[in-house]
């Protein structure tokens, strides 16, 4: 079944823009990613004004509380958002630091889709993808290497109980 979120492909993670005819009255938005195989497991996604992200114009995001062990892991979703063009193609460096500040792993990622609109950079179990076996109270730093627009995104840490905590990489 195709996604019914306009413009998004099946099996994709994207930035969704919600606007109103009357820009003074932008709707209040609650956004939840739900696990249909295990309800009511879900992830609350932060909704932020585009004008706020444009004013932040973030080139670096720092996410606290990165975690990886036998039972829990942290996911990362990042996009570059611009006022002129919506979601932008971007390349980023992702670094994972331990609680003592030591660099535990790093990697470079892009959201470029050949012939298609860019999607989010979505990295499930980011510590595992960076080759880190275990981390507690780590910090994930995302640095823009190329592309237009300000960075925005969130980490979601999934615990064995099914609960999820979400962090943003900068105060909006």
């Amino acid at each position, binding site marked *: 079944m195709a996604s*019914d979120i306009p413009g998004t492909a099946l099996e*994709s993670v994207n930035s969704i823009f*919600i606007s109103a005819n009357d820009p003074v009255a932008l709707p209040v*938005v609650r956004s939840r990613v739900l*696990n249909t195989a295990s309800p009511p497991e879900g992830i609350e996604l932060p909704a932020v004004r585009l004008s706020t992200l444009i004013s932040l114009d973030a080139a670096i995001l720092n996410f606290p509380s990165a975690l990886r062990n036998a039972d829990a892991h942290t996911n990362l979703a990042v996009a570059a958002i611009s006022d002129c*063009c919506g979601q932008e193609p971007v390349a980023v460096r992702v670094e994972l630091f331990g609680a003592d500040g030591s660099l535990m792993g790093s990697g470079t990622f892009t959201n470029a889709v050949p012939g298609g*609109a860019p999607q989010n950079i979505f990295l499930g179990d980011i510590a595992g993808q960076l080759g880190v076996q275990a981390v507690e109270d780590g910090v994930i730093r995302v640095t823009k290497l190329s592309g237009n627009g300000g960075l925005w995104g969130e980490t979601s840490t999934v615990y064995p109980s099914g609960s999820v905590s979400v962090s943003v990489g900068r105060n909006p």
Partner: protein
Amino acid sequence: MTSKSRRSLLLGLIAGLAVVGRSYSADAVVVVGAGTLGSWTTRFDLANPDSLPTSGAAESRTSRISDCVPESVSLGHRDHSRKWLDRRHGQ
């Protein structure tokens, strides 16, 4: 104030209002990390900040967007040229 300076002031005010109006009307609410992946799907619940009962919901795997999102609201993905790939409402 001379007529020339009054005209300059008026033109400046008009230009300023045009800039403010353009940036304001371009504002939107942005959600990063939404979509559909495996058994995961995204649900949006919307409420009009100023008046009840205009509200609605949309889900990435169902056809409920066109049924439930208020007609004054657009929800979707923007491509690189800033055009809405598909705007359900408020064209």
